[in-house]
């Protein structure tokens, strides 16, 4: 008996929609199994991680607060990943965005006004974009792989954060803890706005998701992004400049990550400390794939992963699993969605009792 993959005539739309859902469900099963094998209460852990946050309204603000940065970063990553420009260093751009915003806050700490917040946000976007400009420059000018360069910069960004909060920006009233001074009222965003339990970041994220969707599917730029990823030669033939695309996608995803960073810093009151980096930049990669690199999918997937974050903390207290375990679920989801991708383009065919044959590799001959 041989299991083979046969190419479909057309990619299956059904599979495209169903596989992310199946991946999440299967993750719950596998996750429960892994935990159970190691000695924890597997099913209970899954329940706490996946369902409790959804079913308990008092947890929703928490979920929303986590979903906002995930979605924002993932939107930029969706675009980049479609173009096969791999921005693995979004975490670093997120940090630089937060730092840029905090920098403005530091400079304006004795001032007041409605203009401070927009300025901080703009600085955050620019900060993240500039940090992403480095890999863009290195790739277009020196052909350096952007995976490595953007990733190395994450570690550099961590050191920058370390330096600033233990040195120049250390809170004079902070009892010598490595943290920056808290933001003033003009520099802080409310946790919940417009009477909803959701932070402003979430609304921005959803609005931008729609914008990204329109741009990706209908604009000339969006067409270019999709071609550059699938067929670079065709992209050039269609008049798109590959180097320009690299710059555009990296600046956009860097800017989005920076935006997420400054919003996060401003929403939590600005006390940047060594615990600020929360891995959103990496988790957002999973969000973008789970959302099938589609902006609306990413918005939904961002909520799902935010649930696992919040649930992970719940599970930590209730089932006593360590906090890092959310990563296992998230990685499993990513594995499953990547694995199930094959079903979109190919169908499984089980062949009984055929003589072993060397598989034919597709060529464009008769």
């Amino acid at each position, binding site marked *: 008996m041989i299991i083979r993959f046969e190419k479909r005539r057309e*990619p299956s739309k059904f599979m495209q929609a169903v596989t992310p859902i199946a991946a999440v469900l299967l993750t719950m099963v596998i996750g429960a199994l892994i935990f159970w094998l190691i000695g924890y209460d597997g099913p209970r852990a899954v329940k706490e991680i996946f369902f409790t946050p959804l079913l308990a309204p008092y947890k929703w603000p928490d979920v929303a607060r986590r979903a906002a940065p995930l979605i924002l970063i993932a939107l930029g990553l969706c675009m980049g990943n479609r173009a096969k420009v791999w921005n693995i260093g979004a975490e670093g751009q997120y940090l630089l965005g937060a730092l840029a915003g905090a920098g403005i806050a530091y400079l304006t700490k004795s001032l007041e006004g409605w203009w401070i917040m927009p300025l901080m946000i703009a600085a955050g976007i620019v900060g993240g974009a500039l940090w992403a400009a480095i890999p863009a420059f290195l790739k277009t000018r020196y052909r350096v792989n952007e995976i490595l360069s953007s990733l190395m910069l994450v570690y550099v960004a961590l050191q920058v954060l370390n330096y600033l909060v233990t040195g120049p920006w250390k809170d004079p009233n902070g009892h010598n803890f490595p943290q920056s001074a808290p933001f003033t009222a003009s520099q802080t965003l409310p946790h919940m706005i417009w009477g909803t339990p959701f932070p402003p970041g979430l609304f921005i994220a959803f609005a931008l998701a729609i914008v990204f969707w329109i741009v990706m599917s209908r604009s*000339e730029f969006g067409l270019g992004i999709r*071609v550059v990823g699938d067929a670079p*030669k065709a992209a050039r033939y*269609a008049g798109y400049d590959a180097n320009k695309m690299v710059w555009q996608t990296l600046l956009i995803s860097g800017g989005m990550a920076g935006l997420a960073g400054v919003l996060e810093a401003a929403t939590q009151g600005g006390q940047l400390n060594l615990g600020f980096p929360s891995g959103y930049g990496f988790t957002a990669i999973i969000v973008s794939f789970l959302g099938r690199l589609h902006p609306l999918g990413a918005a939904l997937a961002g909520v799902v992963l935010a649930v696992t974050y919040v649930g992970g903390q719940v599970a930590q207290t209730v089932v006593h699993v360590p906090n890092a375990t959310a990563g296992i679920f998230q990685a499993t989801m990513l594995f499953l969605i990547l694995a199930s991708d094959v079903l979109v383009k190919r169908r499984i065919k089980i062949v009984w009792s055929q003589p072993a044959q060397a598989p034919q590799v597709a060529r464009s*001959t008769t």
Partner: protein
Amino acid sequence: MAGSNEALGGSAAARTRLELRGVTKRFPGVLANDNVSLKVRPGEIHALLGENGAGKSTLVKMIYGILAPDSGEVLWDGQPVKIQNPRAARKLGIGMVFQHFSLFEALTVLENIALGLDSNISQRELEAEIRRVLDLYGLKLDPQRIVSTLSVGERQRIEIVRALLLNPRLLIMDEPTSVLTPQEVEQLFETLRKLAAGGCSILYISHKLHEIIALCDVATILRGGKFVAECDPKKETSRSMAELMIGANLKEITRAPGRAFGEEKFAVRALSLPKVGDFGMALRDINFSVRAGEILGVAGVAGNGQNEFMTALSGEVRALTPESIVLGGAPIGRLGPTDRRALGLCAVPEERNGHAAVGDFTLTENGALTARRRMHFMQGGLISAGRATAYADKVIKAFTVKALGPSSTAGSLSGGNLQKFIMGREILQEPTALVVSQPTWGVDAGAAGAIRQAIVDLAGRGAAVVVVSQDLDELLEFCDSLVVINLGGLSHVMKVGDVSIEEIGLLMGGVHGDPVATVQMTEALHDHPI
């Protein structure tokens, strides 16, 4: 080994070297081979004839063990066999020279051959064996050269040597001459005749009728996956075999008689470009001009700069000066593809999948790739889905593309239909000038004819057309003038009908690797026009 087969020649029927009985092979959506039967005798040069899509490659892959038949029998020396994989085929004594070479550019000839062998002999022994075979068949090749430095003809020799080292009893050649100059084709035929005289059978796949008449003893004709006829090429004519191959009366291309050419529409002047990368080719002082209504053919063997030529004309690579490329009087050398299209220059590259079209995109999106500006799809910064879809639909209908609709993906179309769509997409933009490379490669005869006719009609409406093709027959069929591209440079322009195949062949071959001698030879030919 050489003489033993002839000694058995007496009982030919029982001693058929290879026989296929009722072999069938199915793929999703297509029946590639339908109950095909075939007999090859020892020392026979047997042609397998059919147009693109007839099932020749599939059949031969089953003989070589790459595929297994769904039903039917394969007999070797009269005994039924199941050939599990290429290794097993080689063990039986079957060798194959593919149309697409399996070579490793960065390695030497010797290493490449070593990789193709099943046994593990030392490199020194192997080199000695290789030289023995080269001498035996009068072939020229240096085992220490790195493959990336070799011409296409030389690379094919590596494949042939690989097969010959096995002392094959059946040698399969899959479309071997599409990459050779006419002179190299003769050399190949000499080698094959020597082999056959020694008792090796040859299965020669081709769609080139005059070659088969010149070389082969027997021809089996396939059409649409089915066996159609077995005949003696020497007793048939090109026309009768072509009709068996295509199954209908041949349609001639219609051109308006007494065409007059208009003013110059498209010209290239002193275009030179440096080579890109290790395997690229520099363009040297390209000069030509095309008038309205004229079709200029660019002949040449693969690897002489055709791709660089195409990308320079389409705008994918910009020229060094604006005046090196002139369209309708305007200098466009520094413009990109989109701007060139807007001004009326459309191009179709050689590669369908991944270059001219994207397999995962719908036909609508593929249409938008090139037509979005010239055909005004843009509405307020966004591409209008309505207009894009309507255009794709128009192309599908006008060029009878067999597809479910504009929302089918390009990858779901057959080669011929995709090519028709691509050609239609460019032609319906009514360009002032059209540059196209390999317009009918890998396309069935019906679609090929339609494409050629569409090109001819476009020229009839006053466009200037440039066709780059490795198929000299095709170019001679419908072009008005001809140039040959060799080592990145163009020959002088010749009028089709005024020039002989020999002269063209010499220009195509150049004096490979020696640009000075090539120029001298070209100049010598200039001095003696025919």
